[in-house]
């Protein structure tokens, strides 16, 4: 469950933590858009590597590594699923790196942005309060669900379930006894939360006001401008430039006996 540590906010004094959540959100959306736009191994690798200095500046290297370590299993799964279904080696690697870019960027964003600030930023972006609340509550519940998942794993292991036993398919199936209680509990909790909110007259008042008003400072503007420039250059390069690729026709599936 260490993967979830990489999505949990911890208060640290770093330039990245001090950035306005909107600047970080814009940065995240830029990386997200470019990683979806490009299907090129070199570009996606560059996008991945680009995040490393930011992780170091944010003093969050250890937690980022633990979230990546958790993500590597799923990335490997994506690689094998693509390889086994007859995709080329380059394509499988590209899909895997794209997944890692996404995991890394979201982990970086949630590690360095407090759910309260994020909610405030969304509100100030004129997003309806009920949506902001839903989003920030979901973010806040991630660590709780991680603890719950660990307890469920313990409970099932105490009943003789061996998660690491068997071939890949069996190992995936081993997670069913973990996922079902986790989903059932999440649904139950959300219903209870909704009832508790309604009984406390949630969202019945008129316009909401906030004591704290977020203000973009010069560093935020620099970050937003750089991200915007990066996005424009990326879209321009995608449309007009031919970017070298490492395309090969080698398929792992060809090595298989069937």
């Amino acid at each position, binding site marked *: 469950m260490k993967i979830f540590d990489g999505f949990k906010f911890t208060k640290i004094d770093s330039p990245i933590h001090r950035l306005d959540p909107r600047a970080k959100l814009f940065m995240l959306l830029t990386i997200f858009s470019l990683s979806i736009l490009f299907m090129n191994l070199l570009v996606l690798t560059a996008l991945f590597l680009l995040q490393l200095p930011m992780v170091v500046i944010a003093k969050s290297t250890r937690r980022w590594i633990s979230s990546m370590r958790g993500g590597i299993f799923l990335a490997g799964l994506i690689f094998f699923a693509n390889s086994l279904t007859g995709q080329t080696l380059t394509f499988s690697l590209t899909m895997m790196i794209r997944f890692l870019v996404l995991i890394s960027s979201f982990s970086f964003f949630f590690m360095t942005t407090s759910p309260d600030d994020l909610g405030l930023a969304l509100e100030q972006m004129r997003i309806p309060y009920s949506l902001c609340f839903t989003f920030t509550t979901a973010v806040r519940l991630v660590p709780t669900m991680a603890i719950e998942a660990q307890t469920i794993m*313990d409970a099932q*292991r105490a*009943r*003789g379930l*061996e998660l690491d036993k068997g071939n890949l398919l069996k190992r995936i199936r081993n997670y069913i006894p973990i996922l079902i*209680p986790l989903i059932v*509990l999440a649904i139950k909790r959300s219903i209870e939360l909704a009832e508790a909110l309604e009984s406390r007259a949630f969202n019945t008042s008129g316009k909401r006001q906030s004591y704290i008003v977020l203000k973009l400072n010069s560093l935020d503007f620099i970050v937003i401008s750089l991200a915007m420039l990066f996005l424009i250059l990326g879209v321009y390069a995608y449309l007009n430039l031919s970017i070298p690729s490492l395309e090969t026709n080698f398929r792992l599936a060809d090595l298989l006996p069937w």
Partner: protein
Amino acid sequence: MIEVQSLDFTYPNGKKVFQGVDLQIEEGEYIAIMGENGAGKTTLVKHFNGLLRPTSGDVIIDGINTKESSVASLSKKVGLVFQNPEHQLFCETVKEEILFSLRNFGFSDRVANKQKDKVLEILSLTRYEDVSPFTLSGGEKKRLALASILAWDPKYVVLDEPTIGQDNDQKIKLGNFIKQLVAQDKTVIIVTHDVEFVADTKPKIILFSKGEIVAQDKCVNILTDKKLLHKTSLLMPQIGELMLSFPNLKTKEKIIDVFTARSFLRKELKK
């Protein structure tokens, strides 16, 4: 026998729980592990089936060091019933829920079905055999969780907060059931805050506070020691409190449960 030797345990996040805990639980004993929230009770019992491994020191179950054995093989000896049954229910029917663990432990279908029928009957769940576990009441789910552990007949039965969410009738049934298990020479360990249940069922108490054992003794001695109870945020059972408020009543042993109090008072009134 369960032996805990110089147990130190620190969670990966750096939270230190135990430092040099020593403990022995003999076969056939009935033990209640008590203490304030965060005292380390659940952390301790998770060491018994290897879910947690000591940072240093040893936990030895029938001569097997938990560091050298898998959770699955230790669980065959030590059945741990978790506090919240919802953490383990996932099958379509009650029957399947019980068969799940039996299949994991490699029981043949014939033996598994036999065991399943046996535990369903013992825990009055036979009529729910083909029902979805998610439709059961809280108490029934708790019984199902217990049944799914007892199905493989572990030598040591560990129950984490077994009385939470149980009505009085269920508590009485649970108490009787524990007595039956002890009579069958099983070692039963409960983790609980429920002093009234402990006073009624009279286990030996191991009292924890801040990761240390502060006392282990007969329950009547611990549950009437105000200092110890205060230290571990526990309350004296109501009958114990009542009897202590009449110092003129001379009893052989301090009284903490209603049955003993009733027979004692009857005798006194006859006099």
